[in-house]
Structures are given as C-alpha cells and as structure tokens.
C-alpha cells in the first residue's frame, strides 16, 4: 500500500519544499511573483490528495509494480552515467566515452547472453571507434573542441 502511495507522497514532499522556498517573496496579490507558483502548489496538493483517496478506496487504481527488478538495472546504468559525467571533465571526451560505451555495451549484452571474446572485441571497436570519429567530426568539421 505504501509503495502505491509513494509517488504522490514524494510529489507532496517536493511541492512542500517548493512552497517553503517561496517564503521570502510570499504575497497573496494576483500580480505578485509568488501568486502563480502558490496556485501551482495548491493544485498539486488537491490533485495528489484526490489520487491518494482514489487509491485507498479503489484497488484497481493501485500500481502493483512500481519498483521491479528492471529498476535495479537502471540503478547500474545511472551509476555508469553519473561516473561518466564526473569523469568527462577530468579525463576528456575520448577516454571517458570509450570506457562508458564499453561498460554499458557489455552490461547490456550480459543480460541476454554470456559474454564471449567476439563480443569483447566488437565492443572495444565500437567504444573506441565511435568517440574518436565524433571527436574528429566536431574538431575538424564543425570546429568545436571537445574536452
């Protein structure tokens, strides 16, 4: 039950934070900077409360699979993307992109089939070839230097 209500509770939480941020410019005049954001918070509260009530009353409204095993795969992908962004400015485009594409390709493939030498070789070719050609394209043709 808690999992089903979680999206609405998260949204209410975020919008409470958003409302809290308005405290310095709080003004109830229609033409003020705070009016429409406040209206948006009010709309969000009302809509989410309606959804919570509907989920509590009507079982068909419940989402049975909010988090699945597939979301764990997403966590790994996210970890790789975060690392890639972090590494990009430090090690440059070619090195960071090559590692990123290689790891993601192997991870993606490993979910379907066992990893073999052929895959490793083709992954290495793609993961080095693609970033190098992009780097060359931007540097030489579009005249934009990548990090």
């Amino acid at each position, binding site marked *: 039950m808690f999992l089903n209500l979680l*999206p609405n509770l998260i*949204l209410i939480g975020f*919008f409470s*934070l*958003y409302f809290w*941020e*308005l405290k*310095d*410019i709080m003004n109830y*005049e*229609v*033409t003020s*900077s*705070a*009016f*429409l*954001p406040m209206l*948006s*918070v009010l*709309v*969000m509260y009302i*809509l*989410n409360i*309606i*959804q919570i009530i509907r989920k509590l009353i009507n079982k068909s409204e419940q*989402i049975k699979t*909010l988090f*699945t095993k*597939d*979301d764990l*795969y*997403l966590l790994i*992908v*996210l970890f790789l*993307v*975060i690392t*890639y*962004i972090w590494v*990009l*400015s430090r090690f440059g*485009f070619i090195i960071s*992109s090559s590692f*990123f*594409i290689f790891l*993601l*390709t192997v991870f*993606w*493939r490993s*979910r*379907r089939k066992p990893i073999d030498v052929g895959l490793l070789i*083709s*992954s290495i070719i*793609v*993961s080095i070839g*693609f*970033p190098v050609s*992009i780097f060359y394209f931007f540097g030489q043709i*579009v005249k*934009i230097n*990548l990090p």
Partner: protein
Amino acid sequence: MEKFLAGLEMILQVKVILFLGIGSLIGWVIGILPGLTVTLGVTLALPISLFLQPLEALALLIGIYQSGVFAGSISAILLNIPGTPAATATAIEGNLMTRKGEGGLAVNVALISSVAGGIGGAIALTFIAPLIAKIAVEFGFFEITSILIFALMGVILISGDSIIKSLIAASIGFSLSTLGLDPVSGIVRLTFGIPRLIAGISLLPMLIGLFGLSEIFIQFTKFNKVKIASDKTQFPSIFSTFKYLVKYYKTVVRSIFIGIFIGALPGAGPGTASFISLSEAKRSSKEPEKFGKGAVEGIIATETANNTVCGSAFIPLLTLGIPGDVITAVMMGALMVHGLRPGPMLFAKQGEYVFGIYILLFLSAVIMFFFNCILLPFAVKITAIPSEYLYPVLVMLCILGTFLINRQIFDLWVMLVLGVLGYFLRKLKYPLPSLLLAFILGPRFEVVFRQSLFVSKNSFLPFLTKPISLLFLVLTFITLFVVLRRKWLEKRSTT
C-alpha cells in the same frame, strides 16, 4: 512575393539541401528502429542544429520529422511493431497485408500517401498560416492569455488517459518553469540555494533529459526483443503504386483535411490524426469489407493524415507561438536559439524564414520520396542493428548534446535528474507532453496574465468582455465538457 523569393533563395543552397537530406536519412533510420521515436531523433539533433544557420538547422529537424513519421510505418507494416507512435494505426491494415505477402506493396502505398500528406500539409500551412497571423497581430494581453489557457487545457485534456495525471504533469512543468528570475519583476525566486538556478532551467537539457534519456532508460529496462523481418520482402515498382492514390483520391483528400484540423489543435498529434482518418475511411468506404483484412485504403488514410500533421502542426507554432506537440516544441526551441521568435510578428519581421519553412516542408516530402525509391530495399536490414551498441551510443550522444549547449557540467546534472524524473513519470503513465508544454508556455502565460491584470487593475472582467478572449475561454470550456463527457461515457460502458 519578395519574402517568398528571399526564402527560396536561402533554401536553394547546397548546405540547406544537404542538411535536409541528412535529416531525412537520420529520420528514416530512427523511424524504422522500433523503440526510437521521432521525438528522440529531433531532440538529439537539436544541439547540433545550434551550430548551423537557422534554415540549415530547420532543414535538419524537418527532414528528421517528416521522414521519421513515414519510416515508422515500415516496421509497423513489416514487423507489426510501429517504429513511432504515429504509425500504430498503420500497423493494423499494413501488417495484415504483409501476412498476405503484400508487405512491399503496403510500404510503397504508405510512402506515396506520406508524400501526398506531406505536400498537403505544406500547402495548408502556406495558405492558412498567413491568414491567422494577420488576425493574431491585433491580439493583446487578454486575448493571448485566453489562447494560452485554451492551448494548455487542450494538451492537458488530450494527453494521456487520466486528466488528473495530465494536470499533475502540467503543474510539475509549470513549477519547473518558475525557477530562477521572475520574468516580470526580475525578483530571484525558487533557487533552492543553487546559484546556477538563477537563470532557470534551460529548455534543451530539459528536452534531452525528458524525451531522450528517459526514453533510453525505458528501453534499457524493457529488455526489447526485436523481431527481424524477412529479408525476402519484395518491393514492386513505386510508380505502379500511384494507381491506388488515384483510385482512393477521396480518402486522400479527406485524410489531408483531417490531418490539417488535428495538426492545428494543441495536444493532438499525428497518431490521433491517423486513427481518426482510419475510422473515417472505413465508415465512408465503398469496400468496408476489406478493412480488417489488409486494406490499401486504410494505409492511405493513416499515412496521408499523419504526414499532413507535419505541416499543419506548424500553424499554431508560427502564427501564435504555441507549439501543438513535443516535436513542434523542439522546433520552437530551434527557432528561438537562432533569434527567431515564433508568433505573428515573425511574418512581418522575418517573413523570409516563414516562407523558408513552407518550402522546406514541401521539399522534404519530395526528398523523402526519392530517398525511399533507393533505400526501401535496405529498410529490413536496419532493424537488425544490435541494441547493445545502439543505446550506449545514444546515451553518449544525449550527454554530448547537452554539454555542447553551454559547455556546462551543471546542464548535464539537470539533464540526468530530468531523465530520471521522465523515466518514472513515463512508467507511472503521467503524460510528458503536458509537462513540456506547461514548461514552455508557463513563463509566457505568467507574463501576459500578470500584465493583463496590471492593465485592468486586478480585474478579470476584460477576459470576458473582449470577444476573442471570450471565444477562447468558451472553447476551453466546450473542450473540457466534451472530453469529460466522453470519459464518463467510456467509464459507463465499461462498467
């Protein structure tokens, strides 16, 4: 006439035609590949378009759009997997023809219908847009506010299955648009202690995160197993297919009109147009018994209508500055980064670009035809591109594209956060078009709404006393009533 000639001169340059061709090719590949949408294609191409001249950029994006909408029908017909959501209706009759061994013919029919629709949409835009722009020049704050309310409500009501979810998505979009400087008073608000948020969230990281990265995340977790079509599909001569266009000319004309009307409505896209067109074709056909068994007329109806939308969707964008769907929102972003502000004044101040867009739409339909005459036999092979190489490269392109905009790592974090948000919103079936349109139209709405009230000294009465403003408010209520009634009837019939 002067502006038309100036537009023609700008278009008829090697680089513009070259980018139109490149765009058509990219759109073709993206459209064929199941799982990749035209929205993803234009979103990924947007950062590259920043480094091009305005019409070169538009040529690239229009090429992807028009060609992608058609190419989605290839995998829909041959594999029964619509390459794009717009091709879902085409899969119904198209795949039945493939099962009868007429897949090649079905794809050819889809091609010539798409070309007819593309040209129809371009002609409609050419004649209708200037008329609306002439009227729209006279609109003041009150009228624009009411039009924006109508457009936003249209998107909210039409997108997705649940109006509540659509409203929540729109509220999130609007709230995100309020971060940073207040567009009216200049007061800094809602920065959450992050100095970089003073300038607000840029449109491009938002687009790439919500419509690029989140879509790829979905594909990662979906574990798509793509069927490979038979390499033995025979494509008959394209010219022998023209007889169907002549035979079903009434369906072509009707579908073009449906495409024009639906495309000009905010929120409804090519997918809606093709479904309505299919049901209308079936209803008024002389051979209704052929529908459901692989009817050529069905493919003509769906493909003509969805490609007409490619042109007619520009009508609200160019005349009122209101994007009707996600793709025209991306186009709006491309126009704005090049200093072209969509709206009635664009016709007066930079009319040559408007004519340029008309010509580009027309040319892209023609190029699409000749391209496919050569490329169609290779279409089946495209579906065999291994996804394990494709998606990692696409993630890299999302990151690279976002980085290129301002060369700021902060934009990458924004894109990533919005990508994760988009992933969960998609999974929970919150419509992203509502979020995006509210994000784009939000600041403009806030400015005109507050300026209206400054002018009227906080009175709402002028919204009801000005005829155009009243008209759009009434239209909003009528739309609301019709949609709510339809949902109520649907609910009643299921219970």
